[in-house]
């Protein structure tokens, strides 16, 4: 009898809810950006506004649903992009080795030495910000971890007999790297990617909070946090709702990533 995996089930529930938010925002939150300055700030439980409204009279709950998209899509792009960059460069560094490995490893070390959020702030400030600029900068800054993980995993595979058999068959290096090694490294890279989504979510929210990232008026959890700070006395919901959403989503993704990583490691150990 196989034990039911509790962790991924627990993590799947909030992730499913967030996914529904992202996809269904326009139906679930049609009035997210509707302003009503006569109403202004109202506390949670106000008629028709479960978590109250902000100073522009926008419904906090609807705003939070609408904000799920920018909170989640950017981090997913960052994580997938940095995984692909990491797999490509990590495989080259790990399998070809030599000077190329040295250059790529030093490049990764350099990026790792930089304070991520600070660099993102500077670049976003220099090129006049914007959501996708922030995404691109974070993508590059996230990639060194993926490069290192992929490189290590590739090096572990490269000495295995099945790779030596492929070499004896005189297969090309490209074929060995991408047809033989890559599929066996992919599970580890995917687990890392999930963890990166969580880190990127927090990083993106932090940048939005500081005023970088999404433009004014766009629904976004980080921005809601920053806007809601001043309202905390009048409507605690303006801070607590987006704050909790960030925490729960990041934690759920983290749990899922950890669980996957453990599973892959166990499978690796059995081989």
């Amino acid at each position: 009898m196989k034990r039911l995996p509790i962790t991924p089930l627990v993590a799947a529930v909030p992730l499913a809810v967030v996914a529904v938010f992202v996809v269904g925002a326009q139906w679930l939150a049609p009035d997210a950006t509707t302003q009503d300055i006569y109403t202004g700030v109202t506390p949670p439980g106000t008629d028709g506004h479960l978590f109250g409204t902000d100073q522009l009279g926008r419904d906090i709950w609807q705003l939070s649903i609408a904000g799920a998209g920018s909170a989640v899509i950017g981090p997913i792009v960052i994580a997938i992009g940095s995984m692909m960059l990491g797999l490509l460069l990590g495989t080259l560094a790990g399998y070809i080795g030599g000077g190329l490995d040295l250059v790529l490893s030093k490049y990764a070390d350099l990026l790792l030495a930089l304070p991520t959020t600070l660099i993102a702030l500077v670049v976003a400030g220099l090129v006049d910000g914007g959501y996708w600029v922030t995404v691109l900068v974070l993508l590059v800054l996230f990639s060194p971890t993926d490069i290192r993980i992929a490189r290590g995993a590739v090096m572990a595979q490269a000495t295995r007999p099945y790779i030596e058999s492929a070499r004896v068959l005189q297969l090309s290096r490209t074929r060995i790297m991408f047809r033989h090694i890559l599929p066996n490294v992919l599970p580890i890279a995917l687990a890392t990617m999930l963890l990166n989504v969580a880190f990127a979510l927090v990083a993106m929210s932090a940048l939005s909070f500081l005023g970088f990232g999404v433009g004014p008026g766009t629904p976004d959890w980080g921005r809601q946090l920053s806007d809601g700070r001043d309202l905390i006395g009048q409507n605690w919901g303006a801070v607590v709702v987006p704050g909790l959403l960030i925490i729960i989503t990041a934690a759920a993704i983290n749990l899922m990533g950890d669980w996957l990583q453990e599973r892959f490691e166990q499978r690796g150990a059995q081989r």
Partner: protein
Amino acid sequence: MNALELVDLRVTGPGGPIVSRMDLTVAPGETVALVGESGSGKSMTAKALTGLLPRGVTATGAMRLGDTEVRLDDGPSALVGLRGRRISLLLQNPFTSLSPVHRCGQQIAAALPGGGRGDTAEVLRRLAEVDLPARVARQYPFELSGGMRQRVALAASLAADPLVLIGDEPTTALDVTTQREVLNLLARIQQERSMAVLLITHDLGVARERADRILVMYAGRLMESGPGADVFSSPLHPYTSGLRDSEPPLAVRLERLPAIVGSVPRAWEIPDGCVFAPRCSRADHACTVNTPVLEGGQRRVACWKPLAAGEHAQPTAVAFTETARRDDDLVVVSNLTKRFGPDSPPALDDVHITVAAGEAVGIVGESGSGKTTLARCLIGLERADSGTITWADGETGARRAQIVFQDPTSALNPAMTIEAALAEALRAGGLDRSEVPALLDLVGLPVAYARRRPNALSGGEQQRVAIARALAPRPRLLICDEPVSSLDVSVQAQILNLMNELLDELGIALLFITHDLAVVRQVVRRVYVMHHGRVVESGVMDELISAPQHDYTRQLFASVPGR
């Protein structure tokens, strides 16, 4: 009074029963061998008796150690205070069973009764007992050879003077010459202390040579038990007989080894009725319905249709007509030398060998002899420091030579289907993927296996795929580096038969590298014996066996257990 008495041991894991209804006694001074292939449950038995079962695996049953009763149902806590003092365990790999960060002396001291702190004299006495010099106390395990490490592990497991020592494949990781020394040492200490030894092994030779009584285990059940001298010479159970016959003899070359069909069932595949019935040539319908129990007096057997005396004559040894080698050399290796570091001894030291076209040649040696390095140089995975490798004909690339490794599981890409792996190898030889079915047929696998991935295959089947892949580009030379060492005895015979068939059918040359003289005996006519990177002797196998010239060769033959 018996030192160890075990009644109705059952071990259950997440996949189902691992050991069923096992009774066992070992008297003081007695050696009982528990023999079985992988998946027989023999190691789990050892773990259950020492309270070291992995999580998710539970044991039930009653055990008596001298005058102490232990209920195994109470879990591992029942053995606290007894483990080490009453019953101790010596494991296969001394490199992982010893702590790498503690000196050997500390590890023995920690196991002494009462923690033994600072009792240097006692530690030295214990080291002397296992024939180790005093300096070992200050050394770390990595500074010692495999045989010395296993002696330290033995001293540590004996430190608290147990009544019963369980040796779980204690010499399997060692070379034959070292194995003999460690087993002799163990026998001497056992006699001095009149200690009970439960020897768990897959090696029939070791069991035959060392055990007073032998228990044969298969798929979690005892099949047969009896005095060490009788079990393999006159087996009652068809499995015991099959296992015995599968083992290649050293004295003769058989045209075909009698192999047991199929492979050992995994935990979730264990059938109803007699567990061996699906592989048994004597089984009928009743065998698949009713489970036999171990019955009898001194000789006991769990079988509905046991063999009668005289039914188990040794297989007739067919003196094999061996074709003499052809004159045209396929590859000539001269003066090959290779060092892995400036300070390390040479892995290859001025090696000369030749392989003729279509000839099967063996290379025999223990670990560190350089035999694998030689293979890797030949195949191009390693570059020699000096010397030449001359290939006689114009064949290059994948069609010149291919290799089969020891561990078939890691030799196949887990992410690739069998078909994709074979198609790729065919393409490397300029051939078309339409030959995949023919290739599978050649190595005796059903064509339907093409769509499977390696983890859906048993070890023997995986090795067949690895052989098919190596043959796919139609190489002139096939190099096999310990191709059957990680396989069960019953499967090993199948693979050796397959290799002989392939050699006849394809007419390719074979370089067979192994530590096992009896195995190489069944495949090749001529061998090179390697020792410390040098070829110390070469010649026709028959002559080498009857009149070995070099001291080392003599020692090697003398160390083969149980013959």
